[in-house]
Structures are given as C-alpha cells and as structure tokens.
C-alpha cells in the first residue's frame, strides 16, 4: 500500500554524542529492525556498551540515556522512533580524547559512589540531566531524580553525596 511506504521509515539518523549516526532499516547485518530498542542499537549495533541492560523491562534505570537532554529508558524505547534525536550516552561525557572527566564522573570517583559499577552509567546520566536543567538541587531532589534507579550494592548514600558535591562545584 502506497501510503504505508510513505510513513514507514527506510533510514533514520541518530545523533549520538554529537555524531550523526545513520542506520538503514532492514534485516541485513547491522541493519535496524523496528523491534530494536535503543539499548540494543547502542550496545550491539554501535558497540557503545557503556549503557547497561539490567532488567530490559524499564524497572531498574540501568539503561538510562539522555534523549534531547531528558533521561529516558533506552530498553523501552524503539530506535526507529528516535530519528534526528540527540542522544547522550555515558561515553559522551567529558572529553575522553584528552582524559578529561565530567565533574559528575569525578565526583563519583571522589565519593566512591559505586561498588559493582553496573548501575553507575545510568545514575550519572540521570544526575547530569538534573544538574544541567535545574538550580543546584537539595538532597530530596537528588533522591527524587534517582528514585527509579536500582542499586543493590547500596551505594545510594555515597551517590547522593557525590551529586550534591558536583552540584556545588558547578555553581
């Protein structure tokens, strides 16, 4: 049906960490299937494994990335619906070429705000969105922003310290 061809996507462009990333829809190698989640595309197609998949059902926050600056769950997002979206993953923070870390990343190191580290990329990105879009938060707001993030090692206390400290640095 003609109208279907017009509104079915053939190629989409993701802007990942500032880079245009065209993907061709289809079942060829490295092709984009409509059922691919953004988490899958980032990790398996683009090799950006910094984004983690914990539960794959939107209930743990590990897969959080920023889309147009907002924290969303990449495991519950279809890549094919992200055409021309600006996506920030953990690999996009700081300046990796010169070994420069984002102040949040440094704060997480300074406050030992991780143990196994699996939930850390998602937490850092959610925290980044909080700090970038709001005046320096109080403890309650940090906890609210991270309330969807599962951490079984219980690094919560150190994470809150790290985010508050990073917020002060940016002031």
């Amino acid at each position, binding site marked *: 049906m003609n109208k279907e061809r017009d509104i079915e996507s053939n190629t989409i462009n993701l802007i990942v960490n500032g880079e245009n990333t065209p993907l061709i829809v289809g079942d060829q190698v490295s092709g984009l*299937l*409509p059922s691919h989640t953004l988490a899958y595309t980032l990790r398996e197609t683009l090799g950006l494994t910094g984004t983690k998949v914990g539960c794959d059902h*939107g209930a743990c926050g590990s897969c959080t990335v920023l889309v147009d600056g907002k924290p969303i769950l990449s495991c519950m997002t279809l890549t094919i619906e992200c055409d021309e979206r600006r996506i920030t993953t953990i690999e996009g923070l700081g300046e990796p070429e010169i070994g420069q870390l984002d102040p949040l990343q440094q704060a997480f190191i300074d406050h030992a705000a991780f143990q196994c580290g699996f939930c850390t990329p998602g937490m850092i990105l*959610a925290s980044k969105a909080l700090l970038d879009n709001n005046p320096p938060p109080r403890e309650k707001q940090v906890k609210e922003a991270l309330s969807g993030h599962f951490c079984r090692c219980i690094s919560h206390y150190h994470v809150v310290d790290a985010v508050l400290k990073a917020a002060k640095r940016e002031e």
Partner: protein
Amino acid sequence: MKTFKHFNPTSVEEALSLLGDYQGRAKLIAGGTDLLGSLKDHILPDYPEALINIKAIPGLDNIQGNGEGLRIGPSAKLAEIAQSPVIRNTYPVLSEAAECVATPEIRNMATLGGNLCQDTRCWYYRYPHEMGGRILCYRKGRGPCHAVKGDNRYHAIMGGKACFAVCPSDMAIALTALDASLKIAGPKGERLVQIKDCYHVLGSVLQPDEFVTEIHVPHLPKRTKQAFIKFTIRKPVDFAIASVASVILEEKGVCKDARLALGAVAPTPVRATDAEAAINGKAIDANAAERAAAAAVAGAKPMSKNAYKIEITKALVKRALLS
C-alpha cells in the same frame, strides 16, 4: 522481541486508516512503557504485525485550560502533566496522580493516553512466556481466573466478575474524581464518553480500530480541595495497592460537593458514591470522615488474600477528606 512493521502516521485519520487496514493485528504505540513490556514477555498468544506510532502526529500533546475546562492530548507526557502550571493550579489531583506514576524516567516517556489504556498488571496475566509458557486465563479468552484460588493479594475487592484484575491506571482514578470524558475516534467518527463508561471488567471500551484523541475535564467553577493518595509497598516504582482521588468543594468546613474515586480496588475506577453521600452536607471532621470511609468499602467482597485492602482504602479515604 519479535519484530513487526512500524509506521509513523502524521494525522489521526492516517492512524485510523492503518488500524482499519490491519483489523486488530496492529497496535498503537505511545510511550511504549507498557506495550513493549508485554511484547517482550509475549504474554498474549497473538503478536501484532504492526505498531502505529502516534507520537509522530502533531498537536496531540497539548495541555490547554480555559473557561470551558481542561483539554489534554493523549500524547501529553506524564512529566508535562505533573509540571503543568494550569493543572497544578486548578486540577492538582491530576498533577499529583501523574507525579505518583512509576519513576522519573518513565514519566518522561509515558503518555496520558497510554496510562489510561494500559493493560492490567495481574501477575498471572503478565507471566512471561520464556519461563515455561504464558499463562492462559479468562481475560485471554481461555481458562479460569487463576487469582480466585491463587495469590490475589493485589486483586479486586469489589466489582470483579470472571476477571478480578484491577485497573492499574492512576490517571483514570484522578480523572474519575474530575468527571472527565474521553474523546474516542474511530472509523465511524468521534464520540465523547464519560470516564465512568470507559472501563469494564476486561479493560477499556476501546475497539481495536479506535483511539483516544483528547481528554476533557470539565471546568471547576470554584476552588476545591483535591488530593491523590496512592498506597504502595514502596515509593516510587510500584503500582497502587489502593488509591483515592478526591475533589471536595468545601464551604466554612462543610462539604458541599464531594467526588471520591477509588483505585486498584476494582477492575474499573470506582466512584465512591455512598461515601460521597455520607459526607455531602456534613462538616468534615474525624467522625464524618470515618463514616464516609466505612461507606466507601461497605460493598467490598474481599478475596482470600486481599482483605487488608479494605483497611487501607478506608485509611486513604479518611486522609483524603481530612487533608
């Protein structure tokens, strides 16, 4: 998950036309936070051939308040509703409900329409196919309701019939207390359906070729006291074990008009009309609240493991009235 075709219609008509073409074998996708979970777990024997993305349709995410009331598009995100000044000002039960849903990330993705139309969370219904095969049941068209003899701690204490899974939508409860209506578009045109007529035991009244294009909330002429109280095992993340939405017109401590809606206690949202009758015209004090709370649950028929919901619902009704 298994793949499907995917379409980005740019108008409601295009979306309806696609739904018509697929005759029930296509599903609308909004935020995707409910749909993708049930597709990944393959909980239903049928799998959609196509997903129709309504996020691409412009103008469906508006939030507009004026003298006629509130008009919200189905694609409005829950985070936007929670932060909307007009809603927080005049219809705070709605923004409070939106704030209670899931987690911040999900609220950035989930839409009002999606929240209203989401599928139930009954754990027999939602059992993942990969762990030994999906569970068939009355709601799926085959078999009994497993909750009746099984673990029904989260199931209905009233209104259940053949299926006892509760309506999981917080927004539906808040909208029920606001006497909202849903504009539903289909092949034969549009219809405006009052929210009390939008749900039945097995879910919403939407046909496979219909979709919600607007949510209407009537104008509130006077300042009302509103609350949305959601009881969960933990905050946030959880679906409600019981919830109460209240919109109370109070004058000099006397209740002039009470609207109370109960959530997660029945397969549909419940207007607690007996409780409303018990409090209307009375001074709102602890005794009156107690009586209203008792009236709210008077018709409850608990199952083997969920009598505790009665106590919790009573507590929430009292707290909503006395807040």
